[in-house]
Structures are given as structure tokens and as C-alpha cells.
């Protein structure tokens, strides 16, 4: 397992380097004068010059890159003009909100997509198979911001069973003391059920919109891989041994079928992290996506760059975790490494 971890870490390094180079290049591609951009619209010429010196834009490109990498290593992503805070601090305070939303959405998506895919494969050609087909094709076609708005309209405006689609917690409730930053967990830690339900109610609609969008690849892959596993020789052996259908489907078929599903999780995360930005915009969710969108609209570039970098590093880390999970399930990978 340790070998696997190390070998996977080694393959992640080029990706991280690539990401750093790309985010660096993105700042240098800025049309016009990056210093003016970073300084903001209302900056005086002195301020621009100051920023230029501060950013090291008067140095050569390789030198600038070195400075950039040094800054990254010391956790310095620059300063946001809008909030006046270091971008790193801004992102760290907002990250739990995004993470809680994204993980809940993933959980929801998996909880729906995997049983759906399994059932569709086991009862091939039945109504549930058709449902699965519709859900997978329709799911990826739904613009996530549109689903979010539709949900808000139906559940908040029409049915009035959802809270106002703004933020993580109703204004009348106090957020639980900060432990993990996840309201659901923090509120349970202090046994504040009111805050827990409040947070869950706020999470429900954005998480559901994201889940619907990302459920398709999971369901599609589950169905496909379940079908191919169920046609396999060892399933016939299991059936010929009289094993109970439950054992055949779960212990034998599903555990094998879940392997390709794990690999598709990478794509699901790519979907989710992108959808995150849009959903946070719709639901005024105080996460890093909304932070980046607000910064974009005010031409405040450092937070955008920090955001892209953070998302990429998160994504690489998640992919690493997925690889390790795969190794946990599949002995062949574990022992090969």
C-alpha cells in the first residue's frame, strides 16, 4: 500500500508542476499591463509602478517564475483588492463551505446513481433500465445553474418548503463554533440540532442540483460495468454454486463492477468542482466559487488565480485519493505496485 501511495504520488508531481506553470502563464497572458490589472481600475500610476515592482514584473520571465514558486511555497497567493485580505486566508475561510456542498452533492449523486445503475443492469430492459437511460442522458444535459433556479422557484417560491436560496444558514440562526468548518458536522458536535437542520435545509437545493448534473456518468458507468461483470464467467460459477442472489449481485458482481466506477469518479469531481462555481452563484453560497466570480467581475485578478490553483491542486489530490481507493478495492493493483 505504501508503495502504491509513493508511485501514485510520483505520477502526481508532473501534474502539479504543470498546474503551477499554467497558472503562472495565465497571469502573464493578461491583456495589457498585468500590474495595472492587479492594481485595479482606480489605481494611480505610482500604485501601478509599486505593484509592478512588488510583483517582480520588471524582472525576466524565469526570474518571475522563481519568485512565483517561492511565493506559492510560502503560501502567498497575493492580496485581494475587494476584501483587502491575503487570498490564501480568504480561500481557507471559504473552502469548508464549498467542500461541504461538493461532498454532499457527491454523496447524493452516488447514493442515487449507483443503486440505479445496479438495478438497471440486473433488470435489463425493465422500466428501471429505461429510467436509468433517461436520467443519464437528461442529467448531463441540464445546465446546473438552470436546475438550481428551477429548484429555488419550485421549492422556495411555489411550495415554500425550502428556505430562501441565500447562504449557508438562515440569518436568524447562529453558525456553530468552528471546528471542521462543515456546518453539518460542527452543529452535531455541539448538539445544536436546530443549526444542523437549518444547515441541511440550506444545503439541500444546491447539493441536489449539483448531484443531478454529476449523476449521469456514475449511473452510466455503474450500469455498463455491472452488465459486463454479470456476463462474466465467475458470476456463472457463483450461480452454479447456488450462492444467494444477494451474494452474487453484491459480493461477487458489484465489488468487481465498482472498480470502473471508481475511475469515473475523477470525471465526476471535474464536473462537480466546475458546477460548484455556478451553483454557488445561484444560491449566494459563501464558498470559493462565489469568491472567484465576484473577483472576476471586479477585475480583481489575484483571487481568481488563487482559486484556479486551489481547485487544480484539490482536483489532483482527489484523483490521488481515487487511485488509492482503487488500490484498496483491487488486490491486483495493490500487489503490482
Amino acid at each position, binding site marked *: 500500500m505504501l508503495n502504491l501511495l509513493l508511485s501514485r504520488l510520483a505520477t502526481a508531481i508532473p501534474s502539479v508542476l504543470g498546474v503551477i506553470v499554467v497558472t503562472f502563464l495565465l497571469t502573464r497572458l493578461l491583456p495589457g499591463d498585468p500590474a495595472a490589472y492587479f492594481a485595479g481600475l482606480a489605481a494611480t500610476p505610482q500604485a501601478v509602478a509599486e505593484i509592478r515592482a512588488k510583483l517582480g514584473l520588471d524582472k525576466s520571465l524565469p526570474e518571475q517564475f522563481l519568485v512565483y514558486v517561492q511565493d506559492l511555497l510560502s503560501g502567498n497567493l497575493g492580496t485581494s483588492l475587494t476584501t483587502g485580505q491575503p487570498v490564501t486566508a480568504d480561500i481557507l475561510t471559504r473552502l469548508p463551505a464549498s467542500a461541504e456542498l461538493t461532498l454532499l452533492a457527491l454523496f447524493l449523486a452516488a447514493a442515487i446513481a449507483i443503486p440505479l445503475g445496479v438495478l438497471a443492469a440486473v433488470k435489463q430492459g425493465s422500466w428501471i433500465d429505461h429510467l436509468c437511460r433517461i436520467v443519464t442522458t437528461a442529467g448531463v*444535459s441540464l445546465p446546473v445553474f*438552470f436546475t438550481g433556479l428551477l429548484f429555488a422557484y419550485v421549492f422556495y417560491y411555489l411550495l415554500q418548503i425550502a428556505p430562501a436560496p441565500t447562504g449557508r444558514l438562515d440569518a436568524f440562526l447562529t453558525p456553530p463554533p468552528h471546528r471542521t468548518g462543515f456546518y453539518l458536522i460542527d452543529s452535531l458536535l455541539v448538539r445544536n440540532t436546530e443549526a444542523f437542520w437549518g444547515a441541511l435545509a440550506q444545503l439541500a437545493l444546491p447539493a441536489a442540483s449539483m448531484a443531478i448534473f454529476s449523476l449521469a456518468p456514475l449511473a452510466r458507468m455503474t450500469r455498463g460495468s455491472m452488465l459486463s461483470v454479470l456476463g462474466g464467467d465467475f458470476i456463472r460459477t457463483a450461480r452454479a454454486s447456488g450462492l444467494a442472489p444477494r451474494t452474487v449481485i453484491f459480493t461477487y458482481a458489484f465489488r468487481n463492477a465498482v472498480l470502473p466506477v471508481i475511475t469515473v469518479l475523477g470525471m465526476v469531481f471535474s464536473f462537480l468542482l466546475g458546477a460548484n462555481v455556478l451553483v454557488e452563484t445561484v444560491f449566494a453560497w459563501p464558498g470559493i466559487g462565489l469568491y472567484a466570480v465576484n473577483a472576476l467581475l471586479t477585475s480583481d485578478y489575484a483571487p481568481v*488565480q488563487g482559486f484556479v490553483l486551489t481547485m487544480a491542486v484539490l482536483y489532483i489530490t482527489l484523483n490521488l485519493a481515487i487511485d488509492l481507493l482503487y488500490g484498496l478495492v483491487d488486490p491486483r493493483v495493490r500487489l503490482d505496485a
Partner: protein
Amino acid sequence: MSALLRHARYVLSGNPVTALAFGLFGLLLFAAIFGSAIAPYDPLATEAARALKPPSAAHWFGTDQLGRDIFSRVLVATRLDLTIAFASVILAFLLGALSGVAAGYFGGWTERIVGRIADTIMAFPLFVLAMGIVAALGNNVTNIVIATAIINYPLYVRVARAEANIRRDAGFVEAARLSGNGEARVLLGHILPNIMPIMMVQMSLTMGYAILNAAGLSFIGLGVKPPHPEWGIMVAEGANFIQSGEWWIALFPGATLMLAVFCFNLLGDGLRDIVDPRQRT
């Protein structure tokens, strides 16, 4: 080719959903070409007196906060949305197919460099990368096209590389090489045409994603500038009225967007059945 056509007819007759998708596609194309000509109102004309009216006989999709006719705006927006998506898909195809075929055919350094570029792009959550690119290159429609092309690039590279790799040693390629064709000719004249059907499938599959992506970018305020009708922006404008119950402003452009994406996804699946029957599920 006629066998392919016959097979296509067979697949279509057995698959009404794909036929429906082709129909929808025709409709979208019609709207894109003749949209401005047949729109009942000027999509930009504001009139305070008829602001925020729900759908009616005069305004099928209602009017927005400035009194503009939403039906006309949705109709006229088709051309812009489809153009952005088409342009980015074509760009991704050109870049991806050429470099991918070269990578698969030559191997070695070409393959390593192309592969590394594709891997680096894939290391980002794609929509986030597109945001970063548009923010860096400048907030306009051209850059939306470029960003969308870049994030689709790895998909094309992967398919083209794999296909070229398989065909590198195929008989017809060998024959072309032996009859004195240069490498470039073999590549462009023999391998590329052979992988076109598969690339077409890839294009229609990514078309839906490209539309979604472009609309998403304009939804958060990148690319297309406000008074101009575009589905993503119109949904964004409608978002402000959802909480007060004026649903039609966001619904119609959003639903059209959804339908368009749905159409291309179905079309992609259908085309795949026609081109590559083995992958049918």
C-alpha cells in the same frame, strides 16, 4: 459509404429517439439561420410599459424587466450560442485531431509532448480552467471559444492518438508509404480521413458540453455582454426574478439551452451507434 447510409437508416428506424434528435437539430439549425428574420419583435427593443409580463398570445414567452420579448430573444440567441459551440468544437477538433494523429503516428517525443499538454489540461477541473483562461485572455466571445476549445482538446487528442496508433501499421497505411508518399501525406491523406467518422461522433458528443460550458461562462458574467441576447445571460438575468416569482424570464432560455444540449447528446449517442455499432449498449 452506401452501406453506412443503409446502416444509418436501419439505426434511425429502430431508434425513434435518435430520429427525434435529428429533428430537433434541424429546428435549432433553422432558428440559428433564420432566427433574426422571423423573430416577431426586435430582441433589443425595450419598452417599460410591457415589462415583466407573463407569457401571453402576444408574447409567447413573456417579457423581461425591460419589456423585451423573450421569445424573440431566445430565438435570436440561438445563432450566437450555436456559433460559439460550433467554433470551439471545430477548433478543438483541428488542434486535437492533428496533434493527436501526429502523436499516435510518430510516437516518441511528439507523443510525449502532446500527451503532457493534454494531461496538464486534464489536471484542472475543466470549467474552472475555462474561467481562468477567459479571465486571463480577456473577457470576450472569442476567448470563450478558445477556452472551450482548450478544455475539449484532450478528448480529441486521446481519441485521435489511439486511432492513429492502431492504424499506423495497418495495411493501407503501409501501402501508401511504400508507394512513395511522404509522412505528412500519409498522415493527412490516409490516416486522418480514416478516423473522421469517429471524430464526428466525438464532435457531436462534445458539442453539448461546449454549449453548456459557454452558457455557464456567460451565466457568471464572462464573454457575451448584457444587452445582447444569449441563453446563459438571459438565465442569469432571470435569476434575479425567481425569488419574486417571475419564472418565465429564466425558464424559457434555460429550457431551450437544455433542449439544445439534450439534442446534441442524443445525436452523439445515435451517431456512435451508426459509426461504431460495437459500442451499442
